[in-house]
């Protein structure tokens, strides 16, 4: 799926729990997510903390979209 979107000419940021899978499916800009059932959240946190976490991951994703890459790159969430 990633490859088809990229092939259409749109840069894709893949937010994915299991980054090796993301590598396998051919994503170029990869941002690690939290966990399978809740990639962009964490039910153990309070609602505010959870939003902050999500914001952090998405901020990294936006940065990834603005960064030139020449191959598969994982952008760690800071």
């Amino acid at each position, binding site marked *: 799926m990633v490859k088809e979107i990229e092939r259409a000419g749109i840069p894709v940021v893949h937010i994915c*729990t299991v980054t090796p899978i993301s590598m396998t499916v051919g994503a170029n800009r990869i941002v690690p997510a939290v*966990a399978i059932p809740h990639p962009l959240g964490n039910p153990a946190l309070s609602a505010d903390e959870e939003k902050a976490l999500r914001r952090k991951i998405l901020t990294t994703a936006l940065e990834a979209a603005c960064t030139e890459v020449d191959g598969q790159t994982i952008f760690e969430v800071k």
Partner: protein
Amino acid sequence: MDILVTNNPLVLDRCKSCVHIEYLDAPLIDVLVRVRDLVHLGHALRTHPLSGSIKPNETLYKSVLVSGKHSHIDKQSVHIAGACVLKAQSFPLRVFNERVLYDMQIVDLSLISSALSSCAHER
């Protein structure tokens, strides 16, 4: 603690005293999907989900052993478990004669028993 995911009543009966069993009264594909999900949650594969050379649509029973939950995700397990679900989905479903069900259970039991004895020294 290891978990044996199975939909094989014979395995449930024979192995319940020696290993923790998660029994699914469901089709084979559901066992593979459940195993894949467990792996994504941090359990590692102990046995290969496509055990035996029996095609996923030639038997109704499947038993797969996974480890207890680790804090990290085992990449190799994720890779294999995912590939097995995909491979299994590519086989069209078949209808079976009642008479062969017990044979299928026996073969699945044998395959998983061979693995259980393989890992006995580790457990």
